[in-house]
C-alpha cells in the first residue's frame, strides 16, 4: 500500500507538484491521470525516492520513504519514465543485474526470472543482446527487471507509451495479473480510455494538484456526468492532451 500525503516539489519558480495526496491499495490498480506536464512523473519520482519532496510524506507499506529509503526501494518495483537497457547485455543479463542489485538470492531469482520471461512472452528474446530491441521488447525487459525481487508495490510511469496495439493489450493483461496477485499497482497515464478501462481508483492530477479522485462510479457521481470522459474534462477544466 502506498500513502501519499501533501507532496510538494518545486524546481526554481515552477511548482511541479503542489499538494498531492492519495492512497493506492493492495490488490487494486490505481491510475494517475493527467495531461502532460501535470506533475505525474515528478510525483512518481518522489515515490521511488529518486527525488526528495520539499514537503509532505510518502509511506510505502507503512514505511516512511524519507527515513527507510533502502527498505522502501526493496518493496517497490519501478518502471521509470527512463527505461534504458544495457544494450551490450542480453535481456536475461539485464534482469540478472537487477536481481543482484536487489540482493535476491540466486535460488529465488532464477525460477522467478524464468516465470517473468514466460509471463511477458519474451522467451525468444531472452538470450539476445538488447541492442536493436523494439519498443515493446524493451518495455518487457524493463518490466521483468523491475519485478525480479517480487515487490509488493509496482510503479509504472506511462507503461504503454510507444507500444503498438498488441503490446498495449498484453500490458493491460499483465497489469490485471499483478492486481490478481494482490499487489498494489500504481501507474500514470495521460490516456483517459486506458485509465478508465483498467483502474479501480483514479487520481486526476492537473497543474500539480489532485483535482479529483475515487472509483470511476464516484467520479461520475461527483461531476454529475454519466459519461466518464465528460467527467474528466469537467474536473480538469480542459480536454487538452487527454486523448490517446
Amino acid at each position, binding site marked *: 500500500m502506498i500513502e501519499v500525503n501533501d507532496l510538494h516539489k518545486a524546481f526554481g519558480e515552477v511548482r511541479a507538484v503542489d499538494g498531492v495526496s492519495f492512497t493506492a491499495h493492495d490488490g487494486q490498480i490505481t491510475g494517475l491521470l493527467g495531461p502532460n506536464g501535470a506533475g505525474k512523473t515528478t510525483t512518481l519520482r518522489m515515490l*521511488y*525516492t*529518486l*527525488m*526528495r519532496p520539499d514537503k509532505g510524506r510518502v509511506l510505502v507499506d507503512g514505511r516512511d520513504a524519507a527515513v527507510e529509503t*533502502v*527498505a522502501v*526501494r*526493496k518493496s*517497490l518495483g*519501478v*518502471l*521509470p*519514465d*527512463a*527505461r*534504458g*537497457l*544495457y*544494450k*551490450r*547485455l542480453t535481456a536475461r*543479463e539485464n534482469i540478472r*543485474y*537487477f536481481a*543482484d*542489485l*536487489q*540482493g535476491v*538470492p540466486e535460488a529465488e531469482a532464477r525460477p522467478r526470472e524464468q516465470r517473468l520471461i514466460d509471463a511477458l512472452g519474451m522467451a525468444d528474446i531472452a538470450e539476445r543482446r538488447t541492442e536493436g530491441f523494439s519498443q515493446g521488447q524493451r518495455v518487457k525487459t*524493463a518490466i521483468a*527487471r*523491475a519485478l525480479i525481487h517480487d515487490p509488493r508495490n509496482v510503479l509504472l510511469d506511462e507503461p504503454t507509451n510507444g507500444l503498438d496495439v498488441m503490446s498495449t493489450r498484453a500490458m493491460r493483461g499483465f497489469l490485471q495479473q499483478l492486481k490478481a496477485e494482490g499487489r498494489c499497482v500504481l501507474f500514470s497515464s495521460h490516456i483517459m480510455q486506458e485509465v478508465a478501462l483498467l483502474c479501480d481508483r483514479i487520481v486526476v492530477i492537473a497543474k500539480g494538484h489532485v483535482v479529483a479522485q475515487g472509483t470511476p462510479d464516484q467520479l461520475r457521481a461527483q461531476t454529475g456526468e454519466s459519461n466518464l470522459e465528460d467527467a474528466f474534462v469537467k474536473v480538469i477544466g480542459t480536454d487538452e492532451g487527454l486523448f490517446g
Partner: protein
Amino acid sequence: MKSPVYTIFYKELLENFRDRKTVMNALIIGPLIGPLILALILSTVISRETKRAEKPLELPVIGAEHAPTLINFLRTQNVEIQPGPKDPIAAVKAQDHNVVMRLDAEFGKAFQAGDPAPVELIYDSSQRDGESDQQRITSILDRYGRTVGAMRLVARGVHPGLINPIATVDRDQASPEARGAMILGFLPYVLVLGAFMGGMYLAIDTTAGERERQSLEPLLANPVPRWQIMAGKLLATSAFAIGSLVVTLVAFAVIMPMLPLKQLGFKFNFGIVVFLQMLVALGPVVLLASAVQTSIAAYAKSFREAQSWLGLLNIIPAIPSMILMVVPTKPVLWMFAVPLLGQHHAVMKLVRNETITNMEWGVLMGSGLLLALIVSWIAARIYNRENLAISA
C-alpha cells in the same frame, strides 16, 4: 549475496569488454601509441648517430693547395677532403655542406713565419649537424696545432709541457642507466598518459553515457546507496586504467631491449622488479585520475561535455614533465607528495637505477592515495545530487 559494489564493477567490465571500440582505444591503441612513437624516435636518432660517428667527415676545402701538410693530416683523421664550393656562404645556408674550410695564401706565409695561421670555418650553428661537425673539425685542427707547436718548441730546445700548465682529467659519474635516462625524460608522461586514456572511456560511459542512454534512473531505483554505485563504477574505471598502464609497461619492456641502445653506451633498467615498482609508484595517480574523471563525467551535463572536459584533462600529466625539461630540479622529498611530479621523479629514479628511500615511497603512496580518497568522496557527493539521473 554478492556485494552491490562488486555486482556493478563486474557488470561494467563485462559490458565494456564487449565493446570492441572501447577495448581497442583503451587497452590497445591508447597504451601502445606512446611506446611506439618513442621507439620510432629513438631508433631514428640512434641509427643516425651511429652512422655519423662511423662515416668519414666530408669537408669541402677552398684553397687546399696553400696547406698540403694540414690537408694530409686531416686525411689521416677520417676526413674526406672535397673541392670547395664557389660560394661557401650560400652553400652552407642552403645546407649543401655543414662546414666549409677556407685557406688562402696568408696561411702559408704565417705558418712559415711562425705566426698563428688563419683557417676559416664557415658553418651554421643553428643547423643540427653544423655545430657538431664544426666541433669535430676544430678538435682535429687543435690537435694538429698542438703537435706542430710542440715540435717547434722541441726544435728550440724548450720543454713542450711548459705551455700546458693544467692537465684536466674527466671522470664522468653518469652510469650507463643514467645516460639512458636523459633521453627517456618523457617516459613518465607516456606512462601516466596511458593510464589516463585507459580510464577515460569507462569514466564517460559509466556515468554520462549511462545517463544519456536513460539507464541511470532505473539503476538508482535499486536499494543500493549511491556511493556504492559510484564505487563500483570507479573501480571498473580504475581497472581499465591499470590494464592500460600494464600494456604500456609491457610494450616498453618488449621494445626497449630491441633498440641498439648499447651502441650509444646507454643501458635501460627495465627488469621485472623495476616493472613492478613502476606499477606500484603509478598506482595512486591512476586511482586519482579515475576519481577525477568519474567526478567530471558525473558533473558534466552531457556525454559530449564529459568528452571535451576529459580530453583537456589529458594535457595535465604533461605539465610536470615539461616543467622539468625546461627547469631540471633535483628531487626533494616534498615533490613526492605532489601527484604526477612525484611519479615523474619516482619513475626517473627507477630508470636511472637509483634507490627510492622508504620515506619517499611513503610520501608518494600516502599523499596519492589520500588525494584519490578525497576526490572519490567528492565523486560520491556529486552522485548524491538529485538531478544526477535526469538528462536534460
